[in-house]
Every structure is written in C-alpha cells, then in structure tokens.
C-alpha cells in the first residue's frame, strides 16, 4: 500500500469507527470502539509522520492532501494525544460505568463523536487546501460541542452553547479571511480560478495585494485564534474545559488548541512573502501571545475548580507558544517543542483531575484536597504535572520555556521579557498554591473509592517518563523534525534559525 493511501486512511479510518459507533448497542462495544479508533488513528498518524520526516512531503488526491514536516509534527502530536487520551477515555468511562452514571446511549454518542473528532483533526492536518483545512476545524467544533455536554447539566449546556456560538462565529470570520486571501489570489491569477492550495498561495505570495492580505490575516488570526484560546477571545475556553469530561478537556487543551494555531501558522509563510508584510503577522502573534500569557496567569490565582484552573493554564501556555511562533527563529523551535511538552503535561493534569474528580464527585479544589491519599498514582500525576506546567526542572517544559525566553531575549525585547517573567512567576504562584492544597491538604469529606488499575499506573508512568526523558534529552529525530517544521514556518528567516540553534 502506497503512502498516498495512508493519507486517505488516516482520515477515513477513524471516520469508519465513528460510523460503526452509531451501529453498536452495548456500552462495552462503544468503549472498545473508542480505544480501537484512537489507537488506529494514532498508529496511522504516527506512521505518516515518520514517513514524512524520513522521506519528505507526501502528496495525495491530486494535491488536495499534502503532508510536510509542519503537519507531520502536528500529526505526531495528535498521535501522542489521541492515543493517550483515547486510552484514558476508556478508563474514565469504565469508572463512570461502574458508578452507574453512564448510559449506553451516552457511550455510543461519545464513541461516535470522539472518533469523528479524531478524523476531523487528521483531515485538517493532511489537507493542503486552505478551504478544506477550515472545513476540518469547523467540523471539530461542531462534533465536540456535544462531547462537552455528554452529561447534561445546566453548567455543561451553558458551556456548550457558549462554545458553539463563539467558535462558530469566530470560525466564520476565519472563513471570511480565507475568502479574502482567495480574493487576493484571484487578483493575481488570470483565468484559471485558484484552488486555494497552500502551495500555490506561497508561490504567488509576492504578487498578493498587501492591504487585502492584511485584512485576510486579521480575520484569520481572530477566527482561528479564538479556537486556539488566545486572549482576549478565550472566554469560551475555561467554561468548555471545565465542563467537558476529562478526556475531552485533555483533547481540547492538548491538541485542538494546537490545531487551531496550526491553521494560523499555515498563513505565516504566505504573509512573510507578501510585500511589506515581513514580520507583521508574527508581530500580531507575539501580541496575542503576550496578552494570553498575562491573562492566563492572572486568572489562575482565584480558581476554585481544578479543571478550570488547568484551562486558564492552557491559555497561558498557548500564549507562550504563540509568543514563540511570533518571535520566529529559535522562538519557533522552542514553541513547537513547548507545544509537545505542554500537551504531555496538560494531558496528565486533566487525566488526574478527571480521575480524582470521579473519586470526590466534584472538581472543587477544596473538596479534592489530599489527592496523594486518595490515589497515589493520580496524586503523583497531579503534582508532577503541575510542576511540569510551571516549568520546573527536570521536566521538559523547563527547557522549552528556557529556550522561549532566550529567544525573547535575543529578540532584544527586554520589556517583554520582564513582563513574561513576571507572568510566569504569577502563574507559578497561581498554580502551585492550588497544587499543594490538592496534593496534601485534608479534603472536606473522605473520597469515594475508585478502582485504580494497572492501566492507570501504566498511563501515568508512561507520560511522566516521557516528560522527564524529554527534559533530560530530546531524541535527534524529534529535534530534526521540529527544526524542519520551524524552517517551513519561517522560511525567510530560516538562516537565523540555523544560526540560533547551533552558534
């Protein structure tokens, strides 16, 4: 089977599972489908990523599908997140089943929507066409809406509606931006209508109309940025993340945000090509990133709901990633590394929060306290992930944040550096203050028993091991992949990238 088929398969595979989910009746079957779907799609994604990083870009479907290093990196990340959170979802739902709070219907819905979301994410990553990419992202929005409200409650419905409305409007804006870009493209093209291929757009970039492209990019960054949870468009994020079931929150925080950022990233090289726009788009990303870091850090201090806390933490980290991407050069490398590290850490955090929440029947920090007593594995997971999220050594996040700050410093933006450092300090206080309570304090009432199996321990130890291993040493392939991806993002400034990486 040739590589081209792989691209089709990685989209259709999970989709098939999604359809299958609508047919099965029993809960166990649905759970099985969740596991199988996640694993299959992850396997395929990983395979593609490896192929691409080994051999270079893959094309399929007459150029409609294309995977280069950048999308390969994100595919790899998706594989990582998909597999882990898929397995976790099974564990999580099994517990709910035991507690009798999960109906067969809900399980079926979950399976279908989950696999569908994976398919959509894969789709948006492999598509070479900006329009289809948009379609993919919008699809994820619509599919995940009901995942948020899997357990119907006033809060979850509220969160769902906000998520749905805000993101739909935002994504509509993104489409407007895409159209504007296309319009700009048409002005260059004579005769043959543009297929909105990313590759074409880059090719004609120097002939695009700056004003139009600026307008387009503004629509895009606001639209996709909303989905990515960049402040000040992040309002939906804490609600959705706090109300969704833990696996879903994990998927949101650990990949959906990155996916939205990825959509924005696709336009950066184009904008760099447009005359008179060099560095402008990146400047915007930098600004949004900065705001998000500050806002995210500032809000963490007062949270009383564990998952909401992590949601704001995600805002902060997305901000950091955006900051890095905005800096370009070393910053891009750092940002991409950081997105991997953050996804690992944040996944662990949400996993732990979810399981412990099951034990206490709530995510209120005050009630969840004493995690280490409730369940050692998940308590450790919680504490460790929090430490990783504040960028404490020896976790991987420390080094990626270090690189980020270095990039910021090299950029000569001392004022920004000071602000970011302050925000990081704030985030540290905000997160660890709660983390210590969560880990050690005595909770208000004794927790319910949850059955922590070998699967839980395996999951925790795997993710933790990855976090620490990446902190100590990053495998050369990963590094090369990230650098290749970075080279794609800031093609013009590739030179200073190389300079930045090995002086």
């Amino acid at each position, binding site marked *: 089977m040739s590589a081209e088929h792989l691209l089709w398969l990685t989209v259709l595979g999970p989709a098939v599972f999604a359809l299958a989910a609508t047919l099965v009746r029993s809960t166990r079957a649905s759970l099985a489908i969740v596991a199988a779907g996640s694993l299959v799609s992850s396997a395929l994604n990983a395979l593609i990523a490896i192929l691409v990083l080994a051999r270079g870009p893959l094309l399929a479907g007459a150029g409609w599908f294309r995977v280069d290093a950048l999308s390969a990196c994100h595919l790899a990340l998706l594989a990582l997140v998909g597999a882990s959170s898929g397995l976790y979802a099974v564990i999580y739902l099994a517990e709910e089943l035991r507690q009798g709070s999960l109906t067969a219907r809900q399980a079926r819905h979950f399976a279908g929507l989950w696999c569908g979301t994976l398919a959509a994410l894969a789709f948006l990553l492999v598509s070479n066409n900006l329009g289809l990419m948009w379609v993919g992202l919008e699809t994820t929005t619509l599919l995940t809406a009901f995942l948020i409200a899997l357990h119907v409650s006033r809060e979850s419905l509220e969160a769902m509606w906000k998520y749905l409305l805000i993101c739909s409007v935002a994504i509509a804006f993104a489409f407007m931006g895409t159209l504007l870009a296309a319009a700009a493209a*048409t002005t260059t093209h004579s005769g043959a209508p543009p297929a909105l291929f990313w590759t074409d757009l880059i090719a004609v970039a120097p002939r695009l109309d700056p004003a139009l492209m600026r307008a387009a990019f503004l629509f895009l960054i606001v639209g996709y940025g909303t989905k990515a949870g960049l402040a000040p468009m992040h309002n939906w994020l804490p609600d959705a993340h706090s109300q969704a079931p833990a696996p879903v929150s994990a998927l949101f925080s650990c990949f959906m945000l990155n996916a939205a950022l990825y959509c924005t990233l696709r336009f950066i090289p184009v904008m760099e090509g447009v005359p008179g726009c060099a560095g402008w788009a990146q400047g915007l990303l930098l600004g949004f990133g900065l705001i998000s870091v500050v806002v995210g850090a500032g809000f963490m201090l007062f949270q009383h709901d564990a998952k909401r806390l992590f949601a704001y933490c995600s805002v902060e980290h997305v901000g950091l990633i955006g900051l890095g991407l905005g800096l370009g050069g070393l910053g891009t490398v750092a940002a991409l590394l950081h997105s991997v590290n953050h996804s690992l850490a944040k996944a662990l955090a949400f996993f732990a929060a979810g399981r412990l929440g099951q034990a206490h029947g709530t995510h209120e920090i005050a009630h969840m306290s004493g995690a280490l007593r409730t369940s050692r594995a998940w308590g450790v997971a919680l504490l460790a992930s929090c430490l990783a999220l504040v960028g404490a050594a020896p976790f991987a996040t420390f080094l990626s944040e270090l690189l980020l700050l270095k990039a910021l410093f090299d950029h000569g933006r001392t004022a920004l550096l000071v602000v970011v450092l302050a925000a990081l300090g704030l985030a540290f206080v905000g997160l660890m203050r709660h983390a210590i309570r969560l880990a050690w304090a005595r909770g208000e009432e004794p927790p319910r028993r949850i059955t922590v199996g070998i699967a839980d321990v395996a999951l925790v130890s795997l993710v933790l091991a990855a976090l620490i291993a990446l902190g100590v040493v990053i495998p050369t392939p990963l590094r090369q992949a990230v650098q290749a991806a970075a080279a794609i993002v800031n093609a013009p400034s590739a030179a200073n990238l190389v300079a930045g990486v090995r002086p």
Partner: protein
Amino acid sequence: MLDRLMLVLILSDLAFLGVSRFSAALSLLALQGALLGALALAAHGSASTERMVLLALIGLILRGVLFPWLLRRTARRAEIVEERNPLVGFAPSLLIGLVLLGIAMTLGARLPLRTSPMLGLVVPASLFTVFTGVFLVVARRKALSQCLGYLVLDNGIYGFGVATVGNIPALVELGTLLDALVAVLVMAIAMYRLREEFDHMNTDQLDTLRG
C-alpha cells in the same frame, strides 16, 4: 438586475433587525437563501457550468428551504414565538443597522478587490449582511435569534465569497455547505436541550460560569 437582488438582500437584513416574531424572521431567512442562490446563478451569468448550477441549486435548497424548516420545527417544539425585549431594542437596532450599512458601503467601495462591474452592489450588501448577522448574535437574548444571526452571517460570507472569489472550488463549497448544515442541526438540538433544561432560551441568563 443583480443590484435589485442585492437591494432586496439589504432590505431583508434591515427587516431582520426590525422583526421580533420568529415566524417572520424565518421567512426572511428563506428569502435570503433564495436570493443567494439566485446570486450564485447570476454571478457568472453565461460562464456558469452545470457544476456551478448544481452547487447553486444545492445551496439554494439548503439555505432557502432546509434551514428555515429545521429552525421553524425547533421553534415549534420549543414553543417560543418571539424575541421579547432584546438587549438592544428594535428601533435602535434599525438605526445601528443603518450606520452599519453606511460602513459596509464605504468599506465595500474601498476594498481593493477586482470584481466585475456588474457585481457593483454585491460586496457591500454581503458585508452588510455579515454585520447584521454579528449584530443579531450580540444584541439578542434568545438562543434562536443568535442562531439566526449566525446563519445570516453565514449568508453574508457566502455572498461575499461568490462575489469576490468567483467560483470557490466545489469541494470547499460543498464542505462549507455541509458544515452549515451540521451547524444548524447541532444548534437546533442544543437549543432544544437548553429549552428542556432551563425552560427558557434567554442565553444572557446563562452566566453561572464566570471568573
């Protein structure tokens, strides 16, 4: 001929700002769908291939028939008739609408787009539709009106696309249509759930999640 269509579109938008009863609003939506279908057909005049015609027809059916019907059904099941006291009253909405129209006109004129002269009014009109949609989302209480707003916004963007890009690749257009359909379905169900849970649809009262 196109300009007349667009005039009607503009008027329908203003009407949207003015009406409170959903039945009226939904018929307006149907009207807009039809208009856009016509626009899609007329935009390329002679140059239109059967593929475009097909797409235009699909769009017309979806926007002009299916969406309104779905929403009407939802409205009936959720037993809501009209948007009482919206966040921004109807008269002020109309005034704001006029302002928006002015902005749309100037903006449409100043955007450096290469559009065929026959499409003179299309860009401003669709921009105005976009604005209207956003305004509806922001200024109305009921979930249904926000959904309507979203659809109007969608219409506007569609019109804009038709006007500026000429023919969007079929796959993309189909994708967008599909998404629009799913969006309507999802919103419909969501509204129904809201209705069940809260027995009202005033989204401004959904503010338990804060801070």
